[in-house]
């Protein structure tokens, strides 16, 4: 999957989950500080990502995903071949 497609799909998930506008979902946006999420929202988003991208994200990896870019990087590096 191309990086641009990952970003588009992830943006859709974030918009749906957090109720923010697509233009707010910048790469450097922090889920908590910029997108108003709390810890429960982030766990929900990780589940959304797992389902949408067919991934299995370990808790210790999930804890490191703090920004939109962190999520894009993780997905790109772990997408099934």
């Amino acid at each position, binding site marked *: 999957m191309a990086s641009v497609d990952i970003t588009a799909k992830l943006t859709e998930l974030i918009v749906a989950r957090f109720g923010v506008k697509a233009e707010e979902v910048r790469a450097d946006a922090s889920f908590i500080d910029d997108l108003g999420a709390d*810890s*429960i929202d982030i766990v*929900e988003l990780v589940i959304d990502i797992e389902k949408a991208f067919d991934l299995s994200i370990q808790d210790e990896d999930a804890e490191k995903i703090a920004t939109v870019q962190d999520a894009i990087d993780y997905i790109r590096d772990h997408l099934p071949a």
Partner: protein
Amino acid sequence: MSRRVVITGLGAVSPLGGDAPTAWAAALAGRSGVGRISLWDASSWPVQINGEVRGFSPDALLGREARRYERFTWFALAAAREAVRDAGLPEAAPLGDGAGVYLGSGIGGAQAIARNAVQLAAEGPRHLSPSFVPQSLTNMAAGAVAMAHGATGPSLCVATACATGNHSIGEAWRAIRDGDAELILAGGAEGAMFDLGLGGFMAMKALSKRNDAPEKASRPFDRGRDGFVMAEGAGVLVLEELGAAKARGARIYAEVLGYALNNDAHHITAPPAGHAGAARCMARALEKAGLQAEDVDYVNAHGTSTKANDAEESRAIRAVFGRHADQLAVSSTKSMTGHMLGAAGGIEAIFCALALRDQVMPPTINLDAPDEGCDLDYVPHQAKERRLRVVMSNAFGFGGTNAVVIFGAPPA
């Protein structure tokens, strides 16, 4: 001199409309809020009718917070916001330590339990939602309303099935009298309107199957009644200490005069013959209010439209009121709202407050032929004007639980 408690704000979401004035106008017009189930495909179900809250947008009310909460909490938040606004209280500023929230639910967020049970069965524990517990907890409506209005005083969630709203209002009355709070948002919320939720009551054979005429399905005291109509919504009242209400120039709808609670200790769902528990509860509420049976002008009955309740409740009213039972008027607004379960006591208290304000009693619609044992004046079909000074609201729940609240005209 004990502290007196008055009602200064009303808020309701119900099958009769999105706010309290709309519901009251519909009730006085004798309109039914019952229709065909739209929330899921029930076209092959034995029961295809319910009392749904229609046209409600949680996103418009709550924005992104909506998904955090289950349906019953949405209704609680909407009704509480309306009640706060109606009472002329600040909407933006926190209500503070003097303000409490006594808001219960019969069933709470059962949808969240069902969704996550399916998830668990399908994929194991990996994708259980972190929102599952907070969404399903029955006290989350009280919690969410407290957060929305900065009410940091006493908070309580009553879960006494169909008597929840009455117990919440009664316990709030007690708390304000005791000096634990100056103001309490009190009532009930119910939103377990989904296939499993309705299916459970259907399995008990408790629900009307009058699918071909939904608006005629809820017919308390009528010979043709065949069960209750499951409904949903919320009713929230602002209860306030009289002096505090007067000091801020609040409009007073009514006073809460008394309250009693007890248990039949008889059967999981059925009342005993003659509903002796309900009779004792009504008598005790009168005693707590310092009133005689003759003082009561109108009773908003529990009146569910089930075979089990209506005749027994009528007998209980006769037992308590004696000869005055023939002077008294009794109606069941569930004929129009359906049975809002844990929210019923909330909206019925609102109807009692508005009946006292407008000096008019809402009708029992669909009462074409009163059943044997149903021999009171049920205000059939049409609302009726009457001088109202004291009104009583009954609520009885599965588990044998009973709660009776008495309201009076505003203090002079």
